[in-house]
């Protein structure tokens, strides 16, 4: 038995039915819907790879369902993330959040399974719209502002993609999503559009600005889909594009510095999200089979462990109402399960042996080694040590241990613990038995993470990073958490942009004042003066003109005449009557007109 239903349709159609259900039945409905989606995907995988559903469109063809091993892996993990996050939010999520999440994940699946650029673009935009709702659903002023900025950035990404697609269609005469080589303007625009969603350095601030402001489960949703969909698109269209290696290395390195000094723990995770996506982008850039496999495998692992960490921090936020490291600490006493799951996520992101990233991130490191990319390899190793430092130690340490904040919240509700438990279980499963994930990857895998040297070198790296943390803590050198914000490139549009637009307004105001004082004001006054007695005004102007040019003897006479006219203005001493007569005639005419008009109107009306 096979299927021909695009995975996106099930979720987007399913979103319409959400308001019908209430309470527990809504949760059941959402979980069943996610499971149905996964079942459909398993059926899709039975068919031979390729285009399974297409319709004609103008002179082209829309490939509504294009299935291969690359799209299937992303499809599977997206459904798993959907199921787990619905379970996590079962107690708190509003109908708005559920609908937005379904459309958002539907959009992500649409991008992954679209075989043509037109439908891919539509799903891309759908993701931008629906994910903004997940931020706004927090219903705070900060969330509204951050969501608005988020939406504008993604609108720009969509426009770049659209222009790129139009140029590409013009160039190739085909809508098909295929591998592209960077070269024409169209390909660069698509590259850049994907880059914004991928949070490349300098284009990343939307992520660290908005994700920590979303709702509790909204942030978990956001962490899984937008960046991973962009990684998918890069892996599909630009595998082996060399700039990606350097972009990815920069992404892996710079956020860890921010993560060390950031106070909001969900924002720490947002920075570490960019850091992990950096590894994937490097993998896509290297482009060998091992590297692409590594990038995809790490995307799967990251969705699970990053989701798990965001869930743990979301649970802390829900139970305490606080998320800043300065306000937390000692929560392990009353939230032991959340603390334990958080540490599983921390071990996984840090790539401890027997946890997921050990089996996935190392593929990318090995691919960089095989290619002889020395500098990149060093940067990635630095990023590996750094991620353990901020996500592996800092997150659990400041939330659950550190100094006792005195907070004694209740343990997270059971549905949240189950969701975190499933994610934690999968993190360990991938770490212990990576073969199951390897079997799903796009290319055949011949990679063995568990060699003596690899285990030892990784343990050395991590334990000595932990030693560095401990020594710095004991020496009092470790930067204490501070109630502060750290400027990032969003400053450019949040502050510098504001200053620029304000100075433009101020400049426009000054021009307006000058215009009124020097141009429009005198013109209007002149016009008023003129209209009081046009004939006399013209005569006065003519007199003034004559005075400039006449002989000295005549000047005296003309000047006294001008003075007299000015004194009498607007009366005209030379012709007092004709003007008065004319005015009387006009007034009489108007009066008659009015009367006639009135009579006519009352008759017909």
């Amino acid at each position, binding site marked *: 038995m096979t299927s021909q239903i695009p995975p996106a349709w099930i979720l987007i159609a399913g979103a319409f039915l959400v308001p019908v259900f209430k309470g527990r039945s809504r949760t059941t409905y959402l979980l069943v819907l996610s499971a149905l989606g996964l079942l459909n995907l398993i059926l899709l995988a039975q068919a031979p790879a390729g285009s399974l559903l297409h319709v004609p469109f103008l002179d082209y063809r829309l490939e509504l369902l294009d299935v291969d091993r690359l799209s299937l892996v992303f499809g599977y993990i997206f459904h798993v993330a959907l199921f787990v996050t619905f379970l996590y939010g079962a107690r708190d999520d509003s109908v708005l959040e559920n609908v937005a999440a379904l459309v958002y994940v539907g959009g992500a699946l649409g991008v992954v399974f679209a075989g043509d650029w037109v439908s891919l673009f539509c799903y891309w935009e759908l993701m931008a719209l629906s994910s903004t709702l997940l931020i706004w659903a927090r219903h705070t002023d900060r969330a509204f502002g951050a969501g608005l900025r988020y939406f504008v950035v993604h609108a720009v990404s969509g426009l770049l993609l659209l222009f790129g697609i139009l140029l590409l269609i013009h160039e190739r005469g085909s809508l098909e999503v295929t591998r592209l080589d960077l070269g024409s303007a169209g390909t660069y625009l698509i590259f850049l559009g994907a880059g914004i969603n991928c949070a490349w350095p300098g284009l990343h601030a939307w992520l660290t600005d908005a994700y920590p402001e979303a709702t509790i489960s909204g942030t978990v949703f956001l962490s899984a889909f937008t960046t991973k969909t962009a990684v998918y698109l890069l892996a599909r269209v630009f595998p082996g594009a060399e700039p990606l290696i350097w972009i990815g290395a920069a992404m892996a390195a710079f956020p860890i510095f921010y993560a060390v000094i950031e106070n909001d723990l969900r924002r720490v995770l947002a920075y570490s999200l960019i850091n992990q996506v950096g590894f994937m982008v490097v993998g896509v850039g290297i482009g060998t089979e091992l590297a692409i496999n590594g990038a995809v495998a790490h995307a799967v692992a990251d969705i699970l462990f990053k989701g798990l960490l965001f869930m743990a921090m979301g649970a802390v936020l829900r139970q305490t109402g606080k998320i800043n490291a300065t306000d937390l600490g000692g929560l*392990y006493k009353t939230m032991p399960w959340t603390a334990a799951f958080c540490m599983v996520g921390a071990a996984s992101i840090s790539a401890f042996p027997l946890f997921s990233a050990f089996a996935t991130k190392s593929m990318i490191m*090995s691919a960089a080694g095989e290619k002889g990319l020395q500098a990149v390899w060093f940067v990635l190793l630095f990023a590996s040590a750094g991620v353990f430092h901020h996500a592996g130690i800092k997150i659990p340490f400041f939330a659950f241990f550190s100094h006792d904040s005195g907070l004694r919240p209740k343990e997270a509700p059971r549905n949240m613990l189950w969701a975190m438990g499933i994610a934690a279980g999968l993190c360990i499963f991938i770490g212990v038995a990576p073969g199951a994930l390897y079997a799903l990857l796009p290319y055949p895998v011949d990679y063995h993470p568990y060699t003596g040297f690899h285990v030892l070198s990784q343990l050395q790296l991590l334990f*000595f990073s932990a030693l560095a943390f401990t020594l710095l803590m004991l020496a009092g050198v470790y930067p204490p958490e501070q109630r502060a*914000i750290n*400027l990032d490139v969003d400053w450019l549009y949040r502050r510098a942009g504001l200053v620029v637009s304000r100075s433009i307004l101020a400049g426009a105001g000054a021009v307006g004042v000058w215009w009124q004082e020097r141009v429009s004001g005198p013109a209007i006054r002149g016009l008023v003066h003129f209209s009081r007695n046009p004939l006399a005004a013209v005569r006065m102007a003519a007199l003034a003109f004559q005075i400039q040019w006449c002989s000295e003897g005549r000047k005296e006479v003309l000047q006294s005449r001008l003075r007299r006219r000015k004194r009498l203005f607007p009366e005209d001493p030379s012709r007092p009557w004709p003007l008065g007569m004319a005015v009387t005639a006009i007034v009489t005419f108007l009066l008659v007109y009015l009367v006639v008009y009135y009579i006519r109107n009352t008759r017909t009306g």
Partner: protein
Amino acid sequence: MGEEKQHLFDRPENVTRLIRGLYVACGLLLIAGLVVPAHGHFPWEHAPEFFAAYGLVSCIVLVLAAKHILRRIVRRDEHYYD
């Protein structure tokens, strides 16, 4: 309100034990590093205890750079944007 239950790290000796455990683990890993044969892609991976040294040094550099350089440049009041 009754006496609160004593938790794991309420006792300072447990914290000391944990830190000592870390030192011991680091020592054992250093010894293991002399025994396990290396097979990396680059020559420096074969240098003795390369990964231990890199982990220790890079984390110290990371923290000092973040604290003394980055924080100085980007730190602002909590309500800067409000």
